[in-house]
């Protein structure tokens, strides 16, 4: 990404909300905008802030048609979202590259990354903004329901190892300092872990705000396991190896690759094979954080967890 400026155009604080669609469920976009709109309205009751939204779409066909887009704009404008731009990518860029594409030309003070299947509490944005008063805070994430992320956080300060971009507010200086997501290494998963760790390496804090609520439409299988799709089996495996490599744990990357090579799942074996190919070609990312200042590898987690969704 490029062309990151550092000031809002009219002196007011400004937020750009970004989401990347890929074959969204019917009604997802409307629901997202409904929740976001009310959250913006509530924020603007106490804060003079300009909000715009950017939607990127990597679906095979456009998920939002012009008439629908105009309806959405009309619905949210009175709530304080001045404009919605819609960028049809004509290809599936993944979340990292998709967000980077939308970040081009960023001039707002903050970016709110949102998943398309999220629904913000009306108080979410205001609660996220509360923590940005502290200039050391570079990235604030909301708390997801009904399935809360198990990642540990400091109950007093909110400090946490990394933040999920299912809903995370990021200072523009962070975008500037990090250059956005590492889309060459991460397609769909762990792009936010990497982004968080680089945010911390750049000297900013990453915090969890438990009072900033969002509904993230995750569901459980009949035996109370998280529902996981094929894409997650592949990209999560690929991302884990990539993350270990990038954060100076080649031993771990190699161990995981070896385990995945023996997996019974084709997709996981394929992820290991692709990793090995990149390793052989020398196209893996440059290693960071050699002293392990920010990166944590605890089992297969990237932070201390309070509990595990995995079957125990």
């Amino acid at each position: 990404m490029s062309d990151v400026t550092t000031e809002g155009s009219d002196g007011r604080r400004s937020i750009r909300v970004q989401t990347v669609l890929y074959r969204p469920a019917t009604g997802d976009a409307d629901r997202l905008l409904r929740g976001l709109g009310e959250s913006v309205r509530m924020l603007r009751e106490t804060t003079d802030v300009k909000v715009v939204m950017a939607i990127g779409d990597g679906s095979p066909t456009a998920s939002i048609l012009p008439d629908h887009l105009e309806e959405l704009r009309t619905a949210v404008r009175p709530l304080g979202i001045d404009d919605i731009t819609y960028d049809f990518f004509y290809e599936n860029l993944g979340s990292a590259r998709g967000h980077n594409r939308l970040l081009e030309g960023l001039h707002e003070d903050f970016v709110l990354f949102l998943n398309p299947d999220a629904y913000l509490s009306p108080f979410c944005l205001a609660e996220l903004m509360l923590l940005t008063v502290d200039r050391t805070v570079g990235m604030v994430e909301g708390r997801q329901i009904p399935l809360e992320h198990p990642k540990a956080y400091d109950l007093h300060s909110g400090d946490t190892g990394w933040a999920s971009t299912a809903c995370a507010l990021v200072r523009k200086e962070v975008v500037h300092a990090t250059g956005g997501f590492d889309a060459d290494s991460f397609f769909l998963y762990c792009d936010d872990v990497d982004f968080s760790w680089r945010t911390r390496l750049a000297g900013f804090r990453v915090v969890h705000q438990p009072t900033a609520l969002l509904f993230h439409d995750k569901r459980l299988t009949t035996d109370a396991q998280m529902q996981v799709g094929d894409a997650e089996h592949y990209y999560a495996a690929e991302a884990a190896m990539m993350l270990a490599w990038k954060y100076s744990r080649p031993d771990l990357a190699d161990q995981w690759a070896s385990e995945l090579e023996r997996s019974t799942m084709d997709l996981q074996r394929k992820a290991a094979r692709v990793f090995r190919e990149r390793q052989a070609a020398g196209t893996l990312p440059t290693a960071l954080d050699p002293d392990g200042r920010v990166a944590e590898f605890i089992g297969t987690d990237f932070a201390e967890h309070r509990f595990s969704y995995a079957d125990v």
Partner: protein
Amino acid sequence: MSDRYNFGLTEYSVYEYVVELVRRFGVGRGEVVVDIGCGYGAIAEAVAELGLGYVGLDLEAAGLADLESRGYSTAEVDLSSPEGAVASIDRLLAGRSPSALVMIDVLEHITNGPAVLDALSGFAIERGGVPLVIAVPNVTHFDLAAKLLLGRWDMTETGLLDDTHVSFFSVDRLQAMTGDGGWVEIGENDFELPISDQHFPSDAAVLQIGSPLHDLLFDVRDRSSGAGIVNEFVRAYAPIGPRGEPAVTDRGPEPLVSVLMRTQGKRPTTLQEALLSMAAQTDQDFEVLLLAHNVAREELTHMRYLADAFGAEFGGRVRLIPVDGGGRTRPLSVGVEQARGRYVAILDDDDVVFGHWVETFQAMARKYPGRVLRSPVAEQDVAEITWGGDRQGYEVVGRPRCRWPDAFDVLDHLWENHSPPCGWAVPRSIFRDHGLQFDESLPVLEDWDVLMQAVLWCGVADSGEITALWRRWQVGESSTSVHTDDEWQQARMAVTSKLDARPLLLPARSMTAIQAERTRRDIYQREAERLQTELLGTKHHVAMLEQRLADARQELEAMRRSSSWKVSKPVRVVGDLARRAGGGHGDRPEGDG
């Protein structure tokens, strides 16, 4: 007309009930009771005993002649002309003031009831608001309902199905007709006959009190609109004149689900989450009844603000209803009364639902209308904590678990509840039409009570998909921590007693399920008997070994005390030392000599 209607006023008859209402509403307000359609004037003497005059009007001369012979004024009246009838009444009164109008067994014989009632209302208003006492047979008596199930409709010469009846009344129809005719009910003294004149054939199981079929059906009838044993509705009315157009309170079509959300305002964070999970539903066909139980006024204001913060459209579907007093069941009772949805569901303020909770109910309701809609629920442990040093919060401390089965099993549920309230919705009809209520006397298990009664009548549709998350408070107040074991036990007994009080209606294939249970029990019993026998044998064997051991010890002791044992001690000591030096047999018990 024959003298088929020449009934006297017996000690237990509808006439006695009519006279009681005349005494209550007519005495002291006029001079004469006007008996319209009086027949033979069964109440005339009883009215006279109240110190009131009596006049009778009828179309049939025989009854009037009989009354005249007893000294009462009468007039012929034809109710097919309401205005003419009013004129006849006026003439018959000859300036005397009416204390009450009476119509016993009249409305069911005429086809222009509304017009007659309307004309009488005008007459009654002109004379200062004369009350009207009406008696009509109840066509919804249990005996008639039960016989319809046998395909029987037995017209008789007199009684509930008098073959001259041209109009039939339920309590609702009577209320509607009198209301349209310009009358408002002011008193009720219904005449009840558990065994009516239609109680035949008397050997039909459906009519036999104590037969399971009768008791089940009677329970259905009794808990619905009531009046199952009312033989005649006996009601008193005051005239109010023509009714205006009803006020239009259009609140749109009834939603699929009314969500009863109990809150005491103690957990604002989880309340926000519960509302958020509703606002985020993929199907918005619901209303939320936010039942604020014993909540202070300022907290109510905050709750309204919270609901409205989700936007005007959602806020408009959240009704904040203050509920004062009573236990934890009271809000549910109030909620059911105010619910408008086709189904009623419960989501307490500390639980949360997945995005397809309503969507799943919708799909099941479409496929299985009228059944209890049920989805399995996951359980998750949470604990109260403080955020940022001063904000009340909580944290999740464990992964979701499946504690309850995917599919509903009625026999298992008779033993204990396996379906937390956030996992099901019951048709509102079960409350509206079948008289089911949340039992406010139950401190806990009120959900199990309603679920079981609803399930036994409606059946269940299972989605098999987890759609809700029930929170178990490891740290913090919950029904488990607030209520004692005794309260839980007593509530369980109360629910059981209620189910015991009536026949159970089990779903198809219950026979096989019960037989399977019985077979399992028999197997376990046989196994228990086998193990018991084995245990007895083992005990016997142990006792025998213990006896041998005791005998051996006795012999050993005797031997040690013998002189030869003492003499040989040096030899044994040398032997022990040799064994220790050799390092072998280290596990052999050492001698004590």
